[in-house]
């Protein structure tokens, strides 16, 4: 490799039209030429456009992301690395992140979803962690939309196809349907890994002269400029972008994971970065810039799957299962042997330099010579305008008719695609490989044992987009609160969160408002619940032909439980008292505004969503956690979509038990049954007086609402009882019927 002085540029100079076709604005094009002092060539322009894409630069969201709390005594690594890391005790760190693969999954659902899982797993094992759990958050269009079955079926088998093969259990997730996702589904995948706290690997390159090594699969022409595609709106022509979707190979992913973890057990690795979005470009630029250094690479040495790939193609390819590492020079040979054992490519392709420049050679010529500082530090940051948030009226329960029997409404809600059993989906995921799964999908939160110990790692993904649309700040806070509740309901305490901000086009003020305000709400909740944000991902431009998705800032929360033996599920036995923890809003019988009930059965009136009282969330959650730890609670379930009646019915179905509930005297029965007031749980206990006394002492509202009973019938007051077995069959039938076209 020759040293480069001032490089002659024999490649054709680009024009603004070229830049525009890569998604750059006129201002950004001018800025590139100013910083470079000349006009870039194709490869250089491609690198700028990828690094300055929304996906890589966070140019529209950065201003808001900076407001999030990212610190706490538990935080080992906050945002900015491949994934975040928190201390979970015993010298161990939980390393986790969530990431979207929305656009590719709409174009090619199986591969899009599979590579989403592969990518997030690489983010986690790049940090030196062995992945131990996967979750996801999925949004599809209306159940009866012509593409929904195809997309749901493809995405689910893609997620399973990767996760099952690589052998990491999928322990949770959420799936919802709304017509706003008809042309733009959301596929967010989350991975959690475990590492020794003092063995966490980062990406900053060190030591000028140290070798830069390419490992993993070969580079092909797939996914070229995927990061730019992920930063543009969809249109009718998008499906012609199928070649920009990457193709995953979980088998190679597994080999790469094992080889990397084997190598990282030694002290050979100085820095490591996976090649995700923008491939070799973002990995080399991030490693060099984080180290305050430069990098020189000979692209002729990059293992290529196809002949004749140009510098532009090699740098922008998003071929999967690849890593870039900086190794100690004397460890290179040992490292090579490990990768050869796993039949993976291992190729020194360059070196760390002191120049602060990215220099690329191709065919003995300089294909790129650009300073790194502008690429990273001068990436545009926009403070885009917001719109006014219209204040919505509170929907009074008194204005809603409660003539229909509760059980009839309950049955209709439970059998809707919104609440029906997700078994058809999660049984396609291996939830038990690694033999540490304590709570598989289907409960409030997933729970895996920390291998070889009694400690448990719990996780949940949550967002209620209709709340975010109605009031972005409240909705952002609610997503965090619901994740917190889901962990609390199994007895685990939330430690930290990762977020996936899925929104439409941020250049439209009303969309920017959704993002900005929901991030502020998320920050409020993360501070109140002491669950800082340690990693995340932003997916904007989720629009098709100008119509935006329901805003969906997904929260992935990770927490711990001291003893897995103390964790509870949502399945009570018979003859237990059912106690509701938390209370409905004082102004009404139950908050029906923006509830599932209001949306599905009451004409979806414009209204305010349930308020989120973060102090109550914290107090009630801690109380539930303590009661579970002390063994006072036999089963618990958080109250969310569908309200109290749905929560009780779900518990009965899970426990195959009946229940008798007391209807309140007076007031609106539907408000009571289906209101979605926050910070609430239902717990089943054998000693209600003790639990109520403890609640009173803790200043936590609690009230007995009924009890479970033998006989398999669910009854509200003196209404006719319904069979829990029948209800269960109906709830299980909805998604299979949808998927078989019934």
């Amino acid at each position: 490799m020759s040293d480069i002085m001032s490089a002659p540029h024999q490649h054709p100079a680009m024009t603004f039209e070229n830049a525009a076709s890569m998604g750059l604005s006129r201002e950004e094009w001018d800025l590139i030429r100013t910083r470079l002092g000349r006009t870039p060539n194709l490869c250089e322009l491609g690198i700028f456009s990828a690094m300055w894409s929304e996906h890589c630069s966070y140019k529209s969201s950065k201003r808001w992301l900076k407001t999030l709390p990212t610190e706490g005594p538990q935080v080992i690594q906050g945002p900015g690395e491949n994934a975040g890391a928190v201390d979970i005790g015993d010298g161990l760190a939980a390393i986790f992140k969530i990431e979207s693969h929305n656009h590719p999954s709409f174009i090619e659902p199986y591969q899009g979803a599979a590579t989403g899982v592969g990518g997030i797993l690489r983010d986690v094992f790049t940090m030196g962690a062995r992945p131990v759990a996967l979750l996801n958050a999925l949004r599809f269009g209306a159940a009866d939309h012509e593409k929904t079955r195809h997309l749901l079926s493809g995405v689910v088998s893609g997620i399973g196809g990767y996760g099952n093969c690589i052998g990491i259990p999928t322990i949770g997730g959420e799936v919802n349907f709304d017509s706003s996702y008809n042309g733009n589904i959301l596929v967010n995948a989350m991975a959690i890994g475990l590492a020794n706290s003092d063995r966490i690997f980062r990406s900053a390159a060190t030591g000028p002269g140290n070798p830069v090594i390419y490992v993993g699969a070969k580079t092909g022409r797939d996914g070229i400029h995927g990061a730019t595609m992920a930063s543009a709106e969809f249109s009718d022509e998008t499906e012609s972008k199928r070649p920009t979707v990457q193709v995953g190979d979980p088998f190679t992913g597994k080999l790469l994971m094992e080889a990397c973890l084997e190598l990282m057990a030694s002290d050979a690795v100085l820095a490591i970065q996976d090649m995700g979005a923008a491939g070799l470009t973002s990995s080399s630029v991030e490693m060099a810039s984080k180290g305050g250094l430069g990098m020189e690479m000979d692209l002729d040495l990059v293992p290529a799957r196809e002949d004749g790939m140009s510098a532009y193609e090699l740098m922008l390819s998003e071929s999967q299962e690849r890593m870039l590492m900086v190794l100690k020079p004397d460890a290179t040979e040992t490292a090579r042997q490990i990768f050869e054992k796993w039949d993976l490519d291992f190729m020194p392709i360059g070196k760390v330099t002191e120049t602060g420049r990215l220099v690329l050679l191709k065919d003995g010529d300089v294909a790129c010579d650009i300073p790194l500082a502008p690429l990273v530090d001068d990436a545009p940051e926009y403070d885009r305008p917001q719109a006014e948030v219209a204040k919505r009226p509170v929907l009074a329960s008194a204005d809603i008719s409660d003539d229909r029997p509760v059980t009839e409404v309950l049955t209709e809600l439970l059998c809707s695609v919104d609440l029906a059993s997700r078994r058809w989906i999660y049984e396609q995921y291996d939830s038990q490989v690694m033999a540490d799964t304590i709570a598989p999908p289907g409960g409030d939160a997933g729970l895996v044992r920390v291998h070889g110990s009694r400690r448990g790692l719990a996780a949940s993904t949550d967002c209620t987009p209709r709340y975010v649309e109605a009031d972005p700040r409240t909705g952002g806070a609610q997503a965090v609160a619901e994740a917190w509740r889901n962990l609390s309901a199994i007895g685990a305490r939330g430690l930290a969160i990762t977020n996936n901000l899925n929104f439409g086009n941020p250049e439209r003020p009303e969309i920017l408002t959704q993002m900005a305000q929901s991030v502020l709400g998320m920050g409020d909740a993360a501070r109140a619940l002491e669950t800082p944000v340690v990693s995340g991902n932003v997916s904007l431009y989720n629009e098709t032909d100008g119509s935006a998705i329901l805003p969906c800032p997904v929260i992935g929360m990770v927490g711990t439980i001291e003893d897995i033996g103390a964790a509870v599920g949502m399945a009570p036995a018979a003859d237990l008292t059912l106690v509701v923890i938390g209370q409905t809003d004082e102004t009404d019988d139950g908050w029906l505004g923006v509830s599932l009930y209001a949306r599905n059965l009451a004409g979806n009136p414009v209204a305010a969503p349930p308020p989120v009282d973060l102090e109550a969330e914290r107090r009630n959650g801690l109380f539930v956690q303590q009661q579970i730890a002390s063994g006072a609670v036999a089963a618990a379930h958080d109250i969310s979509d569908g309200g109290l009646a749905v929560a009780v019915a779900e518990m009965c179905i899970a426990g195959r038990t009946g229940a008798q509930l007391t209807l309140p005297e007076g007031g609106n029965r539907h408000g009571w049954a289906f209101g979605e007031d926050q910070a609430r749980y239902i717990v089943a206990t054998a000693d209600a007086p003790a639990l109520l006394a403890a609640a009173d002492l803790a200043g936590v509202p609690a009230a007995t609402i009924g009890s479970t009973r033998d006989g398999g019938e669910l009854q509200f007051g003196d209404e006719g009882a319904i069979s829990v077995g029948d209800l269960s069959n109906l709830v299980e039938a909805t998604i299979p019927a949808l998927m078989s076209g019934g």
Partner: protein
Amino acid sequence: MSLSALRVAIIVFPGSNCDRDMMVAVERLAGRRPALVWHKETSLDPVDLAIIPGGFSYGDYLRCGALAARSPIMEAVLDHAARGGAVMGICNGFQVLLEAGLLPGVLVENAGLKYVCRNTCIEVVDGTGSPFTAGLVPGQKMVIPVAHNEGNYFAGDDDLQRLEDNGQIAFRYVDSDIHGPANPNGAARDIAGIISANGRVMGMMPHPERAISPELGSADGATMLTASLEALVS
């Protein structure tokens, strides 16, 4: 001889992903850590039991288990079996044993055309003649999970009848209160696991190594594995 004297080897192919789980289970039940043997090895130290674990050996390319069955180590496993050595294949390991010709029949795609991961209830069919069933009682029911896309056991009617007549059907899926059909994959005659004519080779789709404590949902896998290990030691 005590259980901890038992020599167990677990064969690891590229793409195996239940090797650690099986190692942990056997170590806990037998008190001695099994050897993990890399597929590129060409010989196998003398062992009392060779286990082919679950996973996606070679990414299921070509056919499930087909490439692994032709891996260097399999010569040694075949020699071990030919000497009457005990071999157990779980899930992908079962597929490998079929591809290697150590057991009859094939495993084809699930009748539901989807991957399925859930608990199943299996019943011990034959209680004699094989270390893998000798310690269990015919009719004994065990809750053990499955996780596979190609677990639908198939063979010709004559072959199936021969398996039945020879007492080679080790485990069958049976009705229980677990949600979904008893038979998760459409396997002929509800077959969950079979043994070779001499009883020394056993393949099954359910994963006993995932059911080794109540906290994991079932401890019946521990019962099954312990019975096999004890039968092999005596």
